Structure formats: C-alpha cells, structure tokens
C-alpha cells in the first residue's frame, strides 16, 4: 500500500512562470536605472492553497537586481517578498529560495524588478506547494532589511584591509518591525564584474553598536573564476531564529581578499514572522 500519509506535507506542487521552450518568465526593470519595472504575471490564479513556495530566478545582465514577488490583481499587487537581491553573473540561477509564506488558492502571482542598469531583465519561476493537515502554522509576513533601492543592491560590508580579520559591524536595521522566526540572508559582490577569487566568513548579530551578540556565526561564502565571480551561496536559509521586534540587526565579514573594492560584499536579510 502506498505511503500517502494524510498528515504529510508537500503532496501537491505547481510551477508558474515557466515559458517555452525552457525558461522562466522575463521580468524587466524600468528603462531608468534603479527604478521598479512593471509587474510580470507568473500565474493568473493558483490551483490550491499553498503553505510555501520556491522562487527560482536569475539575471540576464551583469548587474545588480532587486526582485519583488507579489500577489493580487493587476495594478493592485501586494508585495509578499520584497527586494530579493540578485548579483549573480549573466545567465546563472542564484538558487531555489524557499519562502515559508502561504498563498491562498485562486491567487494571481506577479513579479517585478529594478536593476542598476536600465531595462535589464531577469527570469523567474515560482513553485508553490500544498501543506498537509499537520503542517505547522506557516509564517505570515516577510520584512526586508538592508536593501538599497538607490543602487538596486544591499548593505555594503567591508572586512577592512587586513586579511582574515573580522571587519566592523554594519547596521542592517536599527529596529526590526516584527518578531522574526526565520531569517533568509542574501549575499552579493556588489555587481563587481572584475572581482577576484576569495573567501568570506559572515556573522549576523543583534544588539546595539559595540554590544553586538552574534546569532549566526561564520557563514562561508566564496567567489572566483569557478563561480564566474558570483558569490556562492547567493542565498542562505531561511534559518530558524528568535529575534524580538525592535531589535537592531547588524552584520560583519572577514575575507581573504584585501583589495579595497574586491573585498566588499552586499548583504540583505529577510525576516519571516
């Protein structure tokens, strides 16, 4: 007898945004740099209640992108995940992001982006899946901290000029607006297309300046010719955390790279509550 547990999760899946012949939906940034483009519909109406979804997307241009995932009717879209950071090299998928947010059946899903280059494009699909009877209450909100609309990037972290030494903390938010139960971290190289081989260790911390307490230590990141100068992993998490609202969140990094430009990384964090 097949093992079709009624209490199991993930019994149904559907992918939207895929296009012929074998690609994701094209999402185009505004003709003006660092300006949101129009929404691209991925699906007019989802088939079933979803307990979570995957976002699979990638750049078509060597630039910095911020991608929004929204739901709702055209011209009335509500963003559910804002400013997903993509600073990957051309035609490379940054990874499959698991977003632990529900989407009701019958929902229209759309995506839009902005880029450091006008009219740049991305490709994106969303794979949503149903939860089982005993699926834990999904999280209901995603709040983005540290994105920078001015250059379609993130908060810049500088490890300093001494290799293998933790740099200063950079504040991502002075006060998070919700209790955070899971944290997704995005990393990029600031769209530096002439970077170099290197490794980084990233700390995420909470607390006031100089009193930071590390909650997630030494996340390992690498970039180089083998990854086409793309920081990998580009997304880390979501990681279960317990961060109370009104908490300051900061990050710092150390690197093997000492060049004043190549050692820099961009970071954005997404708090799920």
């Amino acid at each position: 007898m097949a093992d079709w547990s009624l209490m199991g999760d993930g019994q149904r899946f559907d992918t939207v945004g895929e296009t012929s012949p074998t690609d994701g939906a094209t999402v185009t940034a505004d003709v003006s740099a660092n300006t949101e483009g129009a929404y691209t519909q991925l699906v007019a109406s989802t088939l079933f209640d979803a307990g979570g979804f995957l976002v699979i997307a990638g750049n078509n241009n060597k630039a910095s992108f911020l991608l929004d995932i929204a739901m709702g009717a055209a011209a009335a879209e509500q963003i559910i995940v804002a400013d997903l950071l993509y600073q990957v090299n051309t035609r490379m998928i940054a990874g499959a992001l698991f977003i632990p947010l529900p989407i009701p059946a019958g929902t229209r899903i759309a995506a839009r982006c902005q880029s450091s280059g006008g009219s740049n494009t991305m490709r994106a699909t969303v794979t949503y899946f149903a939860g089982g009877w005993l699926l834990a209450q999904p999280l209901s909100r995603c709040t983005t901290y540290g994105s920078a609309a001015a250059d379609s990037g993130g908060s810049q972290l500088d490890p300093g000029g001494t290799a293998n030494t933790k740099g200063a903390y950079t504040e991502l938010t002075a006060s998070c607006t919700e209790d955070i139960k899971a944290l997704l971290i995005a990393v990029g190289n600031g769209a530096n297309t002439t970077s170099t081989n290197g490794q980084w260790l990233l700390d995420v911390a909470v607390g006031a300046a100089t009193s930071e307490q590390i909650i997630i230590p030494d996340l390992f990141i690498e970039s180089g010719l083998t990854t086409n100068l793309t920081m990998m992993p580009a997304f880390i998490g979501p990681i279960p955390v317990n961060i109370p609202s009104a908490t300051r969140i900061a990050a710092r990094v150390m690197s093997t790279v000492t060049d004043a430009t190549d050692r820099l990384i961009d970071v954005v964090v997404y708090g799920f509550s």
Partner: protein
Amino acid sequence: MAWYAIYETATGRLRSVGTVITDPLAPGLTALSLPGRPADTTMWDEVTRSFIPRPVKVLADRLQDLLTHADYADFQTVWNTLNAARKQQIRDALIRLLGGRRYRNQSEPIGLDAGVP
C-alpha cells in the same frame, strides 16, 4: 536618525557603524557622529579616524597584455610587422572577441581559462 562610527580610541580600528549605540560606550571606544550612512564609495581610515574616498580600482587590459607580456612574444613579433591600418583592424577584432573579458583584475591570470579548473 543620527549615524555613528564607533572605533577603538587607541588604534582607530572601526568596530561598528549604526544608529543605535550603547550609552555609555565601553572604555576605550569613541563615537564619531556622521551626517548619514557612510557612502559605499568611502572606506574607514584608521589613521585619520574618518571615512575617506575608496581608491579607484585599476584594471589590467588583456589587449595590452598581448602587446607587452613576455608570454606573447610570438604575437608581438607578428604585430610589429603590420602597418597602422592592419594593427587597427586586428585591434578592433580582438576587442570584439574579448568582449567583457578584456579587462581583468590585477591578480587575475592573463589567460582566459587560467585558474579555472
């Protein structure tokens, strides 16, 4: 909201940048008031205890590598037999061929596949 750079008083080493600081600061630390979030084009200088312009990155030109590096002496021998018009034609073709790989990091190998396993 006011931004601060907190650094070690004795060494100038930057410890943290943000809008929420401990009050009072721990001994040995100094808080520098900033006009806003430091620009990405600046970096901390431990000597002056301030943010200074980040030095412009200098890239190497693979086209120049072909014309000057000892590894490409054979190419240079042929190049030097060409007249100005032919050199320009070759140069234009190489620029199109190299595309986005024309300029390299100073630490990156000259060869396009060198260093890639």
